[in-house]
């Protein structure tokens, strides 16, 4: 695409209808021809690439909040790792790119030649300083500090307590005291005083049981735990543990589901169908977004319901 864009800009520069357009194309060509532009381009792709997968994962329908906490942690670690060790490989990549596209390559340890400003007024520094410290590290640092700020409620007590429920690494984080505190402090409506005491015992027994149970010990996330509790029948033995797992799972992670529904709405209610009534939209959306359930309903059931909806004069049986 790079070559094609350059080519189009060249055409615009030569054949643009107004002088403004020609000047604009010229400016852009200059910018694209600079090492700095290519460097930032590659850097942003790397940084976005790190988090793209994570944000996709967070939007999954069955994502649980403990896992999301882990994913954010992973994002932080990877950014930190990129800051510590990935600069050299990025530099190499940018140099290769510039060679292919005939762009002047800078040497890391040369002194930086500031363009467009009086050299006397800028502090002398090497390219390494400029690109690594002032660009690469600064960008990552800004992201890291913003991450810590935005996700400061990792520190919120509720999530900290709930994290003890994480089944990964054979229930390494499991902590009975934390979990009983979670139940008594945040879910007092779901657990009576007596149940909180027996929850403690059930948690103790459960973790012993689960660590030695083949299909419970290898679990990664809470969604799996809840399903496995049912499959192994442990949900009946430890009903209070199951209840707590369900409550933590219920905590919402992303509103991506809402966005999915809106994209369905855009398909149903288009420019040509703006007069659609509210009831029709409700029914049509439900059937479109919950196809899985809608398909389990048989024609016979629909017809029976249809017959009973009103006083029908045409019998069907």
């Amino acid at each position, binding site marked *: 695409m790079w070559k094609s864009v350059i080519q189009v800009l060249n055409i615009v520069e030569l054949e643009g209808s107004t002088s403004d357009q020609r000047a604009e194309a010229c400016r852009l060509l200059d910018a694209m021809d600079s090492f700095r532009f290519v460097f930032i381009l590659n850097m942003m792709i790397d940084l976005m690439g790190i988090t793209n997968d994570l944000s996709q994962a967070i939007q999954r329908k069955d994502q649980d909040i403990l896992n999301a906490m882990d994913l954010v942690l992973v994002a932080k670690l990877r950014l930190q790792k990129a800051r510590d060790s990935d600069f050299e490989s990025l530099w190499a990549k940018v140099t290769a790119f510039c060679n292919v596209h005939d762009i002047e390559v800078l040497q890391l340890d040369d002194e930086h030649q500031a363009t467009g400003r009086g050299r006397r007024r800028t502090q002398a520094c090497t390219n390494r300083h400029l690109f690594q410290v002032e660009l690469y590290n600064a960008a990552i640092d800004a992201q890291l500090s913003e991450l810590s700020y935005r996700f400061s409620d990792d520190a919120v007590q509720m999530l900290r307590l709930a994290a003890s429920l994480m089944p990964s690494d054979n229930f390494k984080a499991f902590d009975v005291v934390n979990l009983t505190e979670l139940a008594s402090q945040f879910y007092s409506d779901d657990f009576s005083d007596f149940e909180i005491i027996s929850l403690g015992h059930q948690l103790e027994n459960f973790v012993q049981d689960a660590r030695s149970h083949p299909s419970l010990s290898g679990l990664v996330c809470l969604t799996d735990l809840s399903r496995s509790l049912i499959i192994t029948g442990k949900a009946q033995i430890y009903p209070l543990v199951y209840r707590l797992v369900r409550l933590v799972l219920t905590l919402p992670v992303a509103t*991506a589901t809402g966005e999915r529904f809106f994209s369905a709405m855009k398909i149903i209610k288009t420019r040509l169908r703006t007069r659609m009534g509210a009831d029709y939209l409700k029914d049509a959306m439900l059937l479109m977004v919950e196809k899985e359930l809608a398909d389990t*309903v048989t024609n016979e059931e629909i017809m029976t319901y249809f017959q009973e909806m009103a006083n029908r004069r045409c019998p069907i049986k």
Partner: protein
Amino acid sequence: MIHGSVSDRFLKRQRPIPDYVLQSPSQPVHQAETHCPVEVRSGLDAEASELNEATLERDPGSRKQISDYDHGMREQIRRAYLQLGPYQPAWEDSSLYPLNKQSPPRRFRADWFKQFAWLEYSPNQDAAYCFYCFLFNSSDSEFSKAGFNNWKKSLERYRKHEGTTPNSSHRLAVAAGQVLLRDQAHVDTMLARVSSDVAKDNFRRLEASVDAVRLLIRQGCALRGHREGPGSFNKGNFLELLKVFRKRDADYSRISSTNGPQNSLMVSPKIQKEILHAHAELVRRLLSCEQGSSPFAILADESRDASKKEQMVIAHRFVDEITGILHERFFEIVHVADTSAQTLLQAILQEQQHRNVDMQRVRGLGFDGASNMRGEFNGLQAIINDLNRFAYYQHCWSHRLQLALVGASKDVPSISMFFLMISDIVNVAGGSCKRSDVLQATHKQTVDELIESGEIETGRGLNQETNLSRPGDTRLGSLFQIAFIYDILLGGDRIGNLLYVSCLCGNL
């Protein structure tokens, strides 16, 4: 002794018919009758025969006239009488019938019953009646209503009453009585028999319509067309789909459209909507079964639709108690007048109440970061928290992640400048159709050259036609940051800008 017992048996006044039988039939029976005549009729028969034995007044002199009964009851009463037959209280010894006061005195004779099967005798009135003429209101009112007791002229009068032609009033009444007793000839039975065939056809027509509605709704297509009248070439998806059905299925074609009964084609717009509604209601039942009384979280988001109405989508996140699987299910979409927290709250509460969901089971709230949602004091989450303090709010994590990653990096001036530059490049290079065409053409040429020289591979999904997607098109004008978030994350084409940035930079 004999006299006593016999007269007891015949002359004792019967229990009167209870009011509910005599009054107009109660409403439910009426309604049911229109539904399935056969069943109800047999029910009435059972009732009628019960009423025969115990409650019908049999004495012709004191019984109620058929015309005095309610319309809906008459047939039933007639059938009841017919099943009992004519009232013929026969003394073996005719001397037991009372003498009249004429001279010489005369009396009714029991052997007349043998000669005239229709004859009835009323001990109360000491008069003779005609059973069939009573039932079917013959013109000869002496035998149907008043009673005949001029015994001197009796045989002559009986014959005269019977009439000589087959169309005499009496004979017609007799025929009507015989027909009424033949169940299979009854008009209701005839109708019912026809409708069992008709019902099969109705079923097939309805099923075809159900199939069509299901398919179209599933694919998000419109049911109706712009013009659906007879001259139209495109009658809308639904009718056109049925046309395909008719083409593929000769049996269906035989009973539908112009070949079918025009009063039950099952294709009217109202029917289409009702089928859709029936289906949706059944799915709603499934959903509420699935959720049961599980604790759940409310996820809500708003957006404007094509008709510029603000719509709020509500979803529920819960764990199915039986399977242990986590679901995020569609709950409702509501039109809200404005986006203030109070309006949203009312809309949510109304829907939950309407569908009978207990707000006390809410254990989580998931909204985006808009201030009307997350506000600490008057935000939606704060108001709901006042109602239910266990409804813990979580700001959408993926929104937060993107705000952190994209927003933050722009704090560095050169990066911010870079984004502005990208935006300009897109505007200049891909702005007009002409330039966009040139861009695509050159790009295609490059790809072709590379494929020929074997530098890149061909395969499914590779090297697709791309273009510079303008970030401003996606959302909120030219705010690149927001567009970037949404492009990469939510809605739009998910990987749009990332892909585009890598296209720009890739080896092409």
